[in-house]
């Protein structure tokens, strides 16, 4: 028993580089050797799917991209899956960005899904309006008069010359909003300044760390479901039947989480042994 206690104590003070190595292996190995763990949608993910699926074909959908390269692994798979779902149901997709780097990633997602996978036409089936500085003021601008804020799209084309912009003047002209958000400005600003005052339904996809602060809006019914981090993306991929980056990352995330939990447990066992010994002597 003493030998085990000593061993645990020794492991408690292990060099942190060993921890880094174990974490690296627990992330890399499942990416190369997938375990194929089953993905079951949580109620909040299911709610996003059901809300989008229930929209009448040809609806006007605003997708807002508020994320950057650092949060791409979590948010980008959601955007790809939601776009696939929207284009499959023949909706018109309008994309805005409250973050400057969101425009690059939105452009990448639209090219991949809209142009390459579905062969859709820019300006008729989807449009990238792009980034405008001003945070929540941009949201308010879209609510009151989108044409004042966006005179040209991200490609420099005049908004008046884009066919799918006919009849789109303000936020209320959209049937649904999906906010892909990694922080401020993002989901909360869309709820407070756009969706709530106008009663336009919205759903969101956020980073795992942001779920806490968005959850009250979901519980209150102001946001129709939430895709929570990479697991939310993987669940949405499972629902639309197109596995992607989210699904492939789930095994790695599962094992990494398990390893971190094991480290925490081990650290605490060591702490308790140490505390008992110090009490004794």
């Amino acid at each position, binding site marked *: 028993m003493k030998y085990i206690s000593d061993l645990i104590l020794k492991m408690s003070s292990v060099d942190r580089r060993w921890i880094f190595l174990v974490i690296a292996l627990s992330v890399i190995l499942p990416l190369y050797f997938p375990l194929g763990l089953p993905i*079951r949608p949580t109620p909040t993910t299911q709610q996003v799917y059901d809300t989008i699926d229930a929209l009448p074909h040809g609806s006007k959908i605003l997708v807002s991209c508020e994320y950057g390269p650092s949060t791409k692994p979590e948010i980008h798979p959601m955007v790809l899956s939601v776009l696939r779902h929207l284009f499959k149901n023949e909706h018109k997709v309008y994309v805005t960005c409250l973050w400057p780097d969101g425009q690059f990633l939105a452009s990448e997602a639209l090219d991949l899904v809209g142009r390459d996978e579905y062969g859709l036409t820019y300006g008729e089936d989807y449009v990238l309006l792009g980034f405008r500085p001003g945070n929540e*003021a941009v949201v308010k601008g879209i609510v009151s008069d989108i044409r004042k804020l966006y005179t040209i799209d991200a490609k420099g084309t005049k908004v008046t010359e884009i066919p799918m912009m006919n009849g789109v003047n303000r936020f209320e002209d959209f049937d649904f909003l999906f906010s892909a958000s990694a922080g401020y400005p993002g989901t909360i600003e869309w709820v407070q300044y756009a969706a709530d005052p106008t009663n336009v339904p919205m759903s969101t996809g956020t980073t795992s760390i942001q779920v806490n602060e968005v959850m009250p809006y979901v519980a209150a019914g102001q946001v129709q479901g939430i895709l929570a981090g990479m697991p939310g993306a993987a669940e949405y991929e499972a629902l639309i039947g197109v596995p992607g980056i989210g699904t492939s990352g789930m095994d790695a995330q599962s094992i990494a989480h*398990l390893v971190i*939990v094991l480290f*925490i447990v081990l650290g605490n066992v060591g702490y308790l042994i140490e505390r008992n010994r110090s009490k004794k002597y």
Partner: protein
Amino acid sequence: MLWKRHIPILIVAVIGSLTLFGWFIDEPNIKAFVNDDATQWFDILASFAIFLGGFNLLKMQLQKVLRKKQGWQYSLFAIGGFILAIIAGFFYKGNPDVAWGTHVTADGTLFKWIFMYIFAPLGATMFALLAFFVASASYRAFRIRNFEATLLLVSGIIIMIGRVPLGSSISSWFILYLLVLIGGIAINSVFKNKQYTAIFVSVGIIIVTSAGSSMGWPLDQPGIFYLPHLQEWIYMNPNVAGTRSIMMGIGLGIFATSIRYILGIEKSYIGE
């Protein structure tokens, strides 16, 4: 004094009052100002703020290099990156077929190349490093020192495992067996009696095994011990309650601060 103090305070008081009371007054001109003009003004100011922020950053980094402050070498990279981005944004497109303005997102341009091959990998790398630091920090600092810390630790573990597919593959019965063993440890530490511990663990195992056999060992039953259900409950109940109270506190704080600005009590924006 008039230009530096009184006029800025007057502008803040008038515009602040207009935007605040515009929500409550049903007057078309005031509503138009709040919804359209004030928003446009903010957009214009925000665009100028980007320039101001950029030049301020450049000034700070240059000062650091010129005065050879600690870590000034890193500032060279910041200045280099700044100059490179300005060249790619204003002077050299890298693709003559693309129009100015759209060149920041169009394929084959220098700006897009910088984003794709420098900014994106660096950003992703910085964020990816978090996993290592979180693992190392939680190993060393996440200790069950008191009741609150234990509660935080247990909730954290349930959410970490319950959120991922691995959690949905862990049977409720495994959690029940685990609870029996943890209960055994607790009884042993309280009573320091091996017989009590053995009796508790044996009875617990027998009860869980009999219940499992009679119910056919369903993975997600009893639901209260199924990790995905548990984490969902934590998110939707204790978390929502806590977050709402924090949000209400923040809201009241914002309201109080705004009133202080409008009444001219808060003057930090003019350096007082």
